[in-house]
């Protein structure tokens, strides 16, 4: 099972280049697409999900030519967009039934069982008669997962699913995704590095419509092991430090000093301590390097 993306390019009518010659190869398992807001993640995912057409390029999923034979891909696709609405005045059960019909689950008994099971998994059984447009953010997101699973998908695309969820909801969501994602390809976009670190066996960092880095998270941190340095500086010295060093991130301590993380082959200077690399560091390094170009 393999998703192959070749030279995908897309320029919007407002001249924004959302995809710039993107090529990727994604296998089975969880694939994290990491990038800041506006990086082109959603465009890439919508293009794979067949609801947006690129200017040029190719996408293949196993032997499906996605851009030509969209219907075949949709048969094996589970897609959860970044934001979605539902028809008003329809309950979760009705809506899931509706989507199940649309996805080809024709047998009434099967459909009933499936919908019930999915409501159970997503913990929506108690509220299945309630209208979905009245759901809270987390419930709605769980409903989104339920609809995604209706057709036993082989390719799952979830676009920033954890944004705005409370910790418990987020955890639960990630668990479900992880659980279903074992045997298929899951593409998971986020700007939260934590999500990728916890879940993904493969990842790419994207910005400005380009894939900056495609790497396994484990190897990513290994690559920069011993090159991340940390130091607490005074607030007033921060600008100086930023000029002098390759500062990846900085954050306040309780005592109003600031911890800076610096990427450098050697110890950058006095007071720096070597620290364990984190995935965040990989992310920031990639973005920084891209900026320099």
């Amino acid at each position, binding site marked *: 099972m393999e998703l192959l993306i070749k030279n995908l390019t897309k320029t919007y009518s407002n001249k924004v280049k959302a995809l710039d010659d993107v090529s990727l190869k994604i296998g089975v398992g969880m694939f994290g697409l990491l990038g800041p807001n506006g990086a082109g993640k959603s465009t890439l995912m919508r293009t794979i999900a067949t609801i947006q057409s690129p200017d040029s390029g190719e996408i293949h999923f196993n032997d499906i030519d996605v851009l030509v034979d969209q219907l*075949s891909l949709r048969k094996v696709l589970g897609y959860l967009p970044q934001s979605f609405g539902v028809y008003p005045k329809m309950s979760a059960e009705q809506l899931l039934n509706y*989507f199940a019909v649309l996805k080809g689950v*024709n047998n009434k008994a099967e459909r009933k069982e499936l919908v019930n099971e999915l409501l159970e*998994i997503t913990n929506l059984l108690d509220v299945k008669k309630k209208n979905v447009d009245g759901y809270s953010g987390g419930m709605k997101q769980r409903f989104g997962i339920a609809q995604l699973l209706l057709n036993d998908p082989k390719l799952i695309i979830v676009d920033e699913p954890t944004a705005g969820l409370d910790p418990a909801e987020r*955890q639960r969501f990630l668990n479900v995704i992880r*659980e279903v994602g074992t045997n298929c390809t899951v593409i998971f976009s986020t700007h939260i590095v934590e999500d990728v670190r916890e879940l993904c066996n493969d990842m790419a960092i994207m910005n400005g419509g380009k894939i900056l880095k495609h790497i396994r998270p484990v190897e990513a941190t290994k690559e920069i092991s011993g090159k991340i340095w940390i130091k607490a500086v005074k607030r007033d010295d921060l600008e100086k430090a930023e000029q002098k060093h390759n500062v990846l991130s900085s954050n306040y301590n309780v005592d109003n000093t600031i911890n800076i993380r610096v990427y450098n082959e050697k110890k950058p200077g006095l007071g720096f301590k070597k620290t364990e690399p984190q995935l965040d560091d990989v992310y920031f390094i990639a973005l920084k390097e891209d900026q320099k170009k």
Partner: protein
Amino acid sequence: MFFNIFKNEISYWLDRPAFYVYSLIFLFIAVMTSGSAAGLFDSITVTVGSSRIVNSPFALSGLFAGLSSLVIFLYPSIIGVSVYRDFKSEMHTILYSYPFTKLEYLLAKFFSGIFVVHIIVLLIALGIGLGFNLPGTNPDLLTEFDIKPYLDAYIIYILPNMLFTGAIVFGIVTFTRNISAGFIFVIIILILQGFLASFGQEQENRLIAALLDPFGDMALDYYTRYWTVAEQNELYIPIKGVFIYNRLIWLTIGFAVFISIYRLFSFSQNAFTFSFRKKDSVRFTKSNFGGITKINLPKINLNFSIKTQLNLFWRLSNIDFFYIIKSWPFISIVIVGLLLNLVGLFELGNIFGTATLPRTWRMLEAGAPFSLAINICTFLYAGLLIHRSRISNVNQLIDTTPTPNWILLGSKFLAIIKMQIVLLSLIMITGIIFQIYKGYYDFQIGLYIYELIVLNLIYYVIWALLSFFVQTLIPNPYLGLFVMIVLLIGIPLTSIAGIEQSIFKYNQGPGFSYSDMNGYGSGLQNYFVYKFYWLSLGIVFYILTILFYNRGLSSGIAEKFKIAKSRFNGKNPFFLSLFTLLFISIGGYIYYVNNILNVRKSAKEREIETVEWEKKYKKFESYSQPRIVSVNVNVDLFPKSRNVSASGKYIMVNKTKDVIDSIFLNHNRAISTFEFSKENSLVLEDTIYHFDIYKLKEPLSPGDSLNLEFSVKNQPNTFLRNNSPVIYNGTFVNNFTLFPSLGYSGGELRDDKTREKYGLPPNKLKPHPSNSTALGNTYISNDSDWVDFEAVVSTSKDQIAIAPGYLQKEWIEDDRRYFHYKMDSKILNFYAFNSADYQVARDKWNDVNLEIYHHKGHEYNLDRMMKGMKAALKYCSENFSPYQHKQARIIEFPRTTGTFAQSFPNTIPFSETFGFIADVDDSDEGGNDFAFVVTAHEIAHQWWAHQVIGADVLGATMLSESLSEYVALKVTEEVNGKNKMRKFLKRSLDTYLTQRTFETKRENALMYNDGQGYIHYQKGSLIFYALSDYIGESLLNNTLSNYVEKVAFQSPPYTTSIELVDDLREVIPDSLNYVIKDMFETITLYENRILKAESKELENGKYQVDFEFRVSKYRNDEKGKMFYGDEERDSIFYKSDDMRKPEYSVYLEDYIDIGVFGEDDDNELYLKKHKITSINNKLSIILDQKPVEVGIDPYNKLIDTNSDDNRKKVESL
């Protein structure tokens, strides 16, 4: 803060493309409407010719206010949506925390919407002004520019309507957060207005309608209903009384609505919803802390076989269908549509206040107004279904399912068709309910279903196809709806700009019409051809819809085209070319048949032909021609194949003193042969006007006779064209349609300005009756006087064929039925042939055989018609002269031929809807028993037309129509009694006063009338009825009887209205001489009214009633301009201290009825003619009984511009 919000709103709208689309459409409509009214398209289509000024204050206010009221369709999306938009974009969460007050916010939102609408209204005003002034408009139709009518219309109509409807729409959309709800209100208010307009047709409802009309139209109508053309051209709209009350009522309501909005509105975040269930509040906590769930989904089978796909298609269409029928716009439109339909059912087919029976075709006809509701639902839901997923933001979920486009789109289309079927079925259901309510159980279910689900549905499907395309291209469904409504209304109107052929106008083409006698006739074939033609184009649009259907997200037009190109595969190219080809070839074929195989003439070409005809042949009008003295014809009617072939022989005599050397033969376009009994040569054969000139070798000397033998046969009927007057069942064809005539036959352009344009002299229409040289012809025919008549008519075996005369012989030959008719006395050269599968009802009056040939099942009113025949025969033969025939026959013909009755010698063709299926209500509330009245009128014509016939000069119809209608009133009076006549007279008066306002050329006095119905029927009958009241029925009838004796069956010169009026003048007492002048010689109208009436009981037990009343009369010239006498001394005036202006009148020495009425109905205590010499009068009368009501001319015998203020209740002191 108000200003900031306001400014922000305005700039929002100025950024919207929709705003510019709306503005341009309205500007365009305004320019086109005013331009075409002012003759902008005269050069490409018929000339707009009228004595009406199109930009008079009256016309202009109507046009400006009318077009502005169309803007109401935009209110929901402009005014209504302004607050809702903040919710939709979730701006409200931020916005409502800002420091401004509720009032500022609401006012700014409301008035910004009003402001935007104002821009469009301003553009309409500009467009109207521009349209009138475009080069090419006709300056004769225009008066100078005047700003006042624009301002009047704006202040009185537009602004109050805008504030009132705007406030309600604003409130509705704000609280329901649903544009549709605002839209429903708009539809409802338009329907309400339409209802009030038809409700106000009845005189007694007009005041209520005037007060209740939310747009004020009926209030204006209340004052201007009887305005003559001159008044319409010159006067400003009256801003007074009821009009002001109406405006105040609705402004107050608007204001109250806004106050309520202000009270109810809060910056909260929930929409106002209706719920019948009680909501319990529950504390809600989550318990989903982490946890790993084992996911073990059941194994499911995804099935994409064609069977399951079709199943899915059906299911999805049901889901969409239920979405539609459960939604509020649909429910409201349906409820209102149904109510309107039911109300319409009560009014439809109403003739003279009497309903017709609820036949199924009538129920179907009543469903026609529902058509707009069906179309609006189609347009709206096509848009809502197409954009629904995007509007709800669920499109990304749906569009990534493996459902093919054809299912997603097709199921929506199927849902629309299902909705249309439901709506059409509702017409059937209301029809049946109404029939049951009326106790009428002959439901023709098959007819209902065939017409609704076969004939009508195609029409709506064709609109649905186009609306899918339009709604796919336009992202805003309400804008799409608006565009579709503009197309629906605009497409048929393109005829004004000279686009006349239906093949160029989407979903136009011949219609169909059902009659009990003839079913749908032969017209359906054409209907289907045109519908398949448009269906092909509709399918082309649908395929384009598939190509441009928006699935997923796309940006920009280029991408849409790219996607469309990529979808142009599979069967799409094949079907697209197939249906394009089908469309072009059917259209090409129709075009070929109508334009190449046959000569099609545009309205413009026909106008020019009329001009050419007159220029070429009018010169022959005065040439002497022989007169037809005998007609003998054989007519073979073939109902099955709808053919006619006939032959005949005219015997003609030179009755002039001149030698006649040429015969001018005027015939039709049928295949004809002509053979004269004298040697001749054809010197001119005109194949356009079918006007041929035969030069006789030996001229015809005075007294000599000449025979013409001719044969005519209709051009064959072809697939698309009907060339014969014969129909399957119920043929009715007269001699003018079928047979040749002699000489120039008239038919000239009437409007003098148009004539001037083509270099023709002004049209006198007809010579003045004082012109003694113009009395040679009757107004029926110009080539004969009285003729002998004989005819053999044949038809198919199952039908009876009828012609004037007495049946000599009837036989069957070659499976056809033959009838030989012969007239025993001379008749006018005016006869007709009828053929249908008739039943015959027979009766006798003295020795006259009475027969009614009627359609089986139409027996409802045969008794009333028999009664009418007898009453009129009796009245006329007792009062005027003996009946000249031994039989009188009424012959039914289908309603598709017309709703009228026409009197031929002893033969009266009578439309099925003009009496046969009348539902007469004999109670006091009931209307006119027109089955009886019309029959009486037509029988009276056997005297007043078939014995006495006027010369072909002005006023001729007074001698036929007015006197026949007088007889009808008199026999009605015999049946109903004198006191019941007021309602008939009032109705006639109202019709006269209303119809004269539509006059386009001129209104002459009765004795010089041009043949307008409102003069010779309504005014004429009122005048003769009043005259019989003034001089006594017996004196009038004696005079008429002497007149008949003098002029019946006379030879030329023929009699005129002058002769009769002179006879009348001789017998009238001098004191009543003014009556002749008022009634016959001039247009004179009264304004009589009671001002005050009080009564007191006297000591001797009697009652004294004191009352004050005014009498004034004025005259109108032919354009309706008011004056009070030929010279200054002819008029008088009255002015009291509390009057601002004096009241004028023509000099009075008039005798007018004064009546006093007691309790109980029509208890007449006092009725006497008083001589009135001044405008203001006071009168005191002593009575034995208690007076309840007094009246001046209480029975409305006189022509009075307000017949409602002639009676007044008496106040007891």
